[in-house]
Every structure is written in structure tokens, then in C-alpha cells.
């Protein structure tokens, strides 16, 4: 648990780290308490108020079903961040775990696991996410699963390489010669030593994951209307590009802000904790 305070302390030394934390923090606050502050229901239709311009009652106007755009954006933060967390943690745990096993055991385990990872890598990345979305179906959880599986190869490859380096270190050899079991070595010696690299890449991946999830919803393969997801809001905004361009502008700005925050934060976390990863990812 010492990783988090140490990482934070080093990250805030970089200006981009401070800006990234501020942006991501703002979105987190919006996602957690925002829905309680807005008086509007994000899915309830009020046809008498459709496509209204910005006003005091509706600061960003209303959409084609009379729903308050700001309320939908705020609820959307909860959905996008939720999907991104579930997806990236799925990728981290499954990919990181598989990579660790491949790197630690080598031989047949390495060959089988890395061939499976190669299969995932033989498809262009977004196509892979689309195919998984087609299999598991649409919906919030299913998008998280699709994007999570899409993230497995990155974590698997990284965790394999770092584990291979760690297992050659003296303390692992010493632990083994003292009769420690593989499970104990993996848990107490390997995992704490690959955790830094994995968490750096995890932060950097958050921005990608948000973009992929929003892309799936935009294509109609992810979160479905009327759920206020930013990508899906943009998809329905296409019809009103001429009459109400705001419908297409605001959700896009919301996505750009959040991915920008995570990218700046990810860059700073990498520079603070593991600059060797510069150029490897992102």
C-alpha cells in the first residue's frame, strides 16, 4: 500500500501531473456527487422542451427528447469512468496474471499463453473490441468486458518481460533455495516488483480505454440509448448537426477533457515512477 502515496508524491512534482490530477479529480467529483446536484432525470423524456438552446434552466440546452444535456453529461461521467475502471482492471488482472505466469514458468506455459495473446494481437485493436462486443452483446457491463479483453495483450506482454527480469534477481533465487513455494515467490517477491510498471501502464491505458469504449457506443455496439453515455450521445447527435450543433460539441469535449486528464497523469506517473517505459507504451 506504500505504492500509492509514494507515486502521488512523485507525480505531483511534475506540472502535467498536477494538471492531470486536477482534471481527473474534477471528473471523479462530477461522477460521484454530480448526479445528486442536478434536478433533472437524464433519461426521462419531456417532449415539450425538445432541442432548446442554452438558458438558465438548461445551461447547455436540451436534446431531441427534451432531456437536459448537462445532466446527461454528468451522469455520463459516472458511466464512462465506471466502464474504464472495470475494463482496465479486467485487463490488468487477467493480462498481468497471465504474463506473470508465462514469464515465471517459461517453457510450455510461456509458449501457450503468449500464443493466445498473439491470437488477440492478430486483429486490428478496435476490430477485436468490436468482435467481442458482437459476441457478448450490447450494454454497459458488456462494453466493459469487451474493452477489458482488448486490454489483455498489453498487460500480458509487459508483465511477462518484467517478471522475466525479476526472477533472475538474487532475492528470488535466495527465496527459492530456502524452499519457498512458487505461489509464495510470485505473491511476495515477483508481484510487488512488477506492480510499479503495471500501474504506470494502467494509468496510461485509461485514456485509450475511454476512447475505445466511447467508439463502440458511437458505432451502436456498446452502451445503448437512452443511457447517457458520451459516445452514444454523439451518435444520436449526428442527425441534428445543422440545427443543434451543441448536441455534438459537448459530449465530445467531455471525452477530450477526461482522456486529456488521464494522458497527462499517465505521462507524469511514468516519468515519476518508471521512465524506462518511455516510448514502450504511449
Amino acid at each position, binding site marked *: 500500500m506504500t505504492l500509492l502515496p509514494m507515486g502521488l508524491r512523485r507525480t505531483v512534482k511534475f506540472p502535467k501531473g498536477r494538471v492531470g490530477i486536477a482534471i481527473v479529480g474534477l471528473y471523479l467529483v462530477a461522477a460521484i456527487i454530480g448526479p445528486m446536484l442536478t434536478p433533472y432525470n437524464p433519461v426521462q423524456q419531456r417532449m415539450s422542451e425538445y432541442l432548446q438552446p442554452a438558458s438558465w434552466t438548461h445551461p447547455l440546452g436540451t436534446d431531441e427528447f427534451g432531456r437536459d444535456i448537462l445532466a446527461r453529461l454528468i451522469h455520463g461521467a459516472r458511466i464512462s469512468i465506471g466502464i474504464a475502471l472495470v475494463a482496465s482492471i479486467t485487463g490488468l488482472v487477467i493480462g498481468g496474471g497471465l504474463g506473470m505466469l508465462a514469464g515465471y514458468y517459461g517453457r510450455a506455459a510461456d509458449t501457450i499463453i503468449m*500464443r493466445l495473446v498473439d491470437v488477440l494481437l492478430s486483429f486490428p485493436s*478496435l*476490430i477485436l473490441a*468490436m468482435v467481442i462486443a458482437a459476441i457478448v452483446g450490447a450494454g454497459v457491463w458488456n462494453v466493459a468486458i469487451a474493452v477489458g479483453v482488448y486490454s489483455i495483450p498489453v498487460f500480458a506482454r509487459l508483465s511477462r518481460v518484467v517478471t522475466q527480469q525479476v526472477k533472475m534477481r538474487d532475492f528470488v533465487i535466495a527465496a527459492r533455495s530456502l524452499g519457498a513455494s512458487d505461489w509464495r515467490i510470485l505473491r511476495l517477491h515477483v508481484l510487488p516488483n512488477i506492480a510499479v510498471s503495471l500501474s504506470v501502464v494502467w494509468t496510461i491505458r485509461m485514456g485509450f480505454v475511454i476512447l475505445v469504449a466511447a467508439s463502440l457506443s458511437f458505432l*451502436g455496439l456498446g452502451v445503448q440509448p437512452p443511457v447517457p453515455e458520451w459516445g452514444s450521445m454523439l451518435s444520436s447527435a449526428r442527425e441534428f448537426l445543422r440545427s443543434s450543433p451543441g448536441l*455534438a460539441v459537448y459530449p465530445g469535449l467531455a471525452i477530450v477533457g477526461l*482522456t*486529456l486528464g488521464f494522458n497527462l497523469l499517465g505521462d507524469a506517473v511514468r516519468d515519476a515512477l518508471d521512465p524506462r517505459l518511455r*516510448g514502450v507504451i504511449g
Partner: protein
Amino acid sequence: MARIAGGRLAQAVVTLFLATIVAFLFLHAIPGDPALTLAGDSASQADVEALRRQLGLDRPYYVQYARYLERLLHGDLGQSYKTKSPVVDAIRPRLGPSLQLAVAAITFAAILGMTLGVATALRPATWMDAAVSTVSLLGVTVPTFWLGLMLILLMSVEWRLLPTFGAGSWQHLVMPAFTLGAAPLGMIARLTRSEMLEVLPQEYIRAARAKGLPPRTVVVKHALRNALLPVVNFIGLQFGIVLGYAVVTETVFAWPGLGRLLVDSIITRDYPMVQALILLFALIFVGISTLVDLIVMWMDPRIREASTQST
């Protein structure tokens, strides 16, 4: 080099073989019975059973897979649930526009990205350097579909400069190619810049300058040539991302390519079409990354020399 290149080709064949297994399993992983879908709602139970036998769906998986491979080798990619005609008929007319868009986007990104990368490396810490850093950061933060929509809003709706949707002329290609190329453009510029900054202080560059070569020759022939290898490698990797995001771009601009066909087929549950398309995307992707690897091997004298020594 021939041996290394042969190894790389063999690796590509193995990857493609694995991709055929994924494509085959896809049709079985999808919820629903293919025979029932193909027979239609009005078919009797006996008709469905007959169709299942005819399609070989009652046989064990390995037999079905062997038959699937055999059909693939004969160029038979399956039959569409929707049109009941071979999926190849729907795919063929869309291959050209798709490749045209992807190639235009990556060419635009590569040429402009490398030019900007070299220019900013020659004048670091200037306004242009800062501008390129900002653009490359925006490239990875702005979603492709939103960039496309904003371009339509400005270029077509507000200024009426370019056509909104469709394909057919170079004007139709401008916005989709820019949208798709924007993200790789920024990353290529950033990578070229950092590679050039590593090469420029080297002794051989100083020697080239000292013997009075024109600055242009020094930059292009001596510096860029050495910085190029990782950049070309990276451009090859980007092609996979471009192919994926082409799906989004084609949807935004109603571009008649394979990506839109894939999205439409998933939504209308035309799974044989989806199966054929994922295999085709894997084929294009693996083909291009193999080709790029071979080009990089050929460009790298350390690997190329290995061939002259061995032959």
C-alpha cells in the same frame, strides 16, 4: 537475411492459421442457432434439421473446422444470412474504397508527421515545437468520430467547402483521410523528433557538416536515414490502429468501405459476413505488419549484411 525473413513469414502464416480458428469459433460463440437463422422463422423443425445436416453443423467441431478451412482455400468465405448470396460479392466492391482511405490516411500522416518531426528537431524549444507537441497530445485525446463530426460541422455545414458524405472524388477523401490520419500524425511527428534529436549530436553528423556538405544533405542523407528505422517500424504498427479506426471514420462519413459493412453486419446479425470480415481484417493486418518488418530488415544494414555473409 533470407533465413530471418523466412522465419518472419512462417510466423505470419502461424498467426493467420490461429486467426482462422478465432473466426471459426466466432460463429459458434455467438448466441443463437445458425441453421435456425438461415432457415427463417417460417421453417419447420424438419427443415431446420435438414439444413443443419446440409451445412454440416451436426458434425463434431474439428470436422466442421476442417471443412471450413477447405472452403476457405477454395475462396469460399460463406453465405450471407441477409442476402443469401456469397459474402465475397458484398466484400469485393468495398475493398478498394477501404484500402484507398487507409493508405491515404497513413501516407498523409507519415509525410507530414516526419516533416514536422524533422523541422522541430532542427529548431527545438520554439513555438513550432510547442505547437507540434500540443497537436500530438490532441491526436491521442480527441476521439476519431468527434474530430470527424467537428470537421463536417466546420467544413461542410458552416463554410460549405467540402462534401459531407460519400465517396467518388478527391474532395470526398480529404476529411476522412485527415480524420483518420490525425492521431498517427502526432505520434509519428513526436517519434521522428526524438529520434532526430538523438542522431543530430552524433560525431558523424558533425563530420558531415565539417566537410562542407550542404545542410539539406546532412539532414536528409545522414541524419534522417539513421533516424528512419524506428519510425518506419512505428508507421507499420500504426497501420493496425488505422485499420481499426477506419471503421469509425467510415461510419461518420458514410464511406462505402469494409468497416461500415462490419458494423452493419454486426447490428443486423449477419454473422457469416462478420466472420469473413474479421478474417479479412486479420489477413490485411498481418500482411502489412509482415511487409513492414521485411522492409525494416532490408533497410537495416546490420541484418542485410548478414545475408551477404551467409551467401
